[in-house]
């Protein structure tokens, strides 16, 4: 999946993956996609809930070898 920016949040524990994601999103334009790599197991639920409450869209996510990858599209 195409992304406009990639954030490496691997090895970071909660709350850092979301703190970094929020910061990275501020640098994107509406409609652009941020790709996030994280290893924290809580990240999935939290990112989904955060995206929803901040008006972004969690477009897709996968898990492979203990690494979660998320694609979040910035809201308008």
């Amino acid at each position, binding site marked *: 999946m195409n992304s406009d920016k990639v954030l490496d949040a691997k090895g970071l524990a909660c*709350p850092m993956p979301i703190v970094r994601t929020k910061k990275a999103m501020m640098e994107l334009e509406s409609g652009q996609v941020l790709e996030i790599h994280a290893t924290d197991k809580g990240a999935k639920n939290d990112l989904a809930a955060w995206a929803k409450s901040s008006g972004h869209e969690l477009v897709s996510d996968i898990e492979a070898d203990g690494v979660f990858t998320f694609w979040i599209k910035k809201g308008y």
Partner: protein
Amino acid sequence: MSVKAMNSKEVARKVIEKKELFILDVRNEGDFADWKIEGENFDYFNIPYFELLDGVEEIMDKIPADKEVIVVCAKEGSSIMVAEMISDEGVDVSYLEGGMKAWSEYLEPVKVGDLKDGGQLYQFVRLGKGCLSYMVVSNGEAAIIDATRMADVYVNFANDIGANITHVFDTHLHADHISGGRKIAEATGATYWLPPKDAGEVLFEYAALEGGNNVVIGNSTINIHALYSPGHTIGSTSFVIDEKYLLSGDILFIDSIGRPDLAGLAEDWVGDLRESLYKRYRELSEELVVLPAHFMIIDELNVDGSVAEKLGTLFAENHGLNIEDENEFRSLVTENLPPQPNSYQEIRETNMGKIMPDEDKQREMEIGPNRCAVR
């Protein structure tokens, strides 16, 4: 203002002593709704930590000035962040050390009573999950019943009181939590007993626990008398200890009764459940003190933190023991069941030795409340 760590033991004391506490729970709304720290005089406010990344000004009016405040999250990291922000606003605040993960694993040992020959019976209350396990001690020997996966807690406790663990029992194959029975048996050389009717698919060695078995702990008089009482599972077995205590496993609780569906056979087992509760238990002395494997709600705790009640009192007051009509009973235990526990199939497979998830995975499988009862 200062931020301090509060550990699960301190929170447990507040639950048992019915102290006041204000819990600012910064987990997701769904997680909070599913499961939280229960206390009779606790107040709550839930807002996910990621709503607070820009500051806590908006919620400061929700935080009472006259109560002790603790911030709680899943593992601890986010609660420290939020606690520091609140402290910066001028309020003293604590965070829960290790988060809900630690709370779920904390066991509070409570002495239930002395046994006739000078031995003791302890109940280990897992407040975060409602699991109850037991240690019978006599003459330097100890037996453990329905151990949680935190095996070290029992081994260390036995060491501290100078007892060798010689027997470990599970009243049934658990579906809501991972048993520490096998781990304790391996660490101490104790015999691990399981009811064979629940252990058909178990992949390790165990001693067959059957109705009528008597196991002697210590060198003299403590009898652990096994009583076959199917219904929650087909193998479910209760114990009468010292002719005074009835360990009822997941068959009978203080304010509810066991559910028959967690191994997939509700319709088949409902008759067994009725037979156990309405016939076999009726034949026992009403003076026996019932010690179940779970509690459901914090109201079931006695003032000392134990969960125990006389069988006669339960016959009078527990709704599940007072349904005359068999069809009504059948529909209660098969139709209005609460959701099944998280990961209960995987938990059963772990307890059979079929899968061996690592500790992180085991922890994750057990997260959330237990749901073994129907009311």
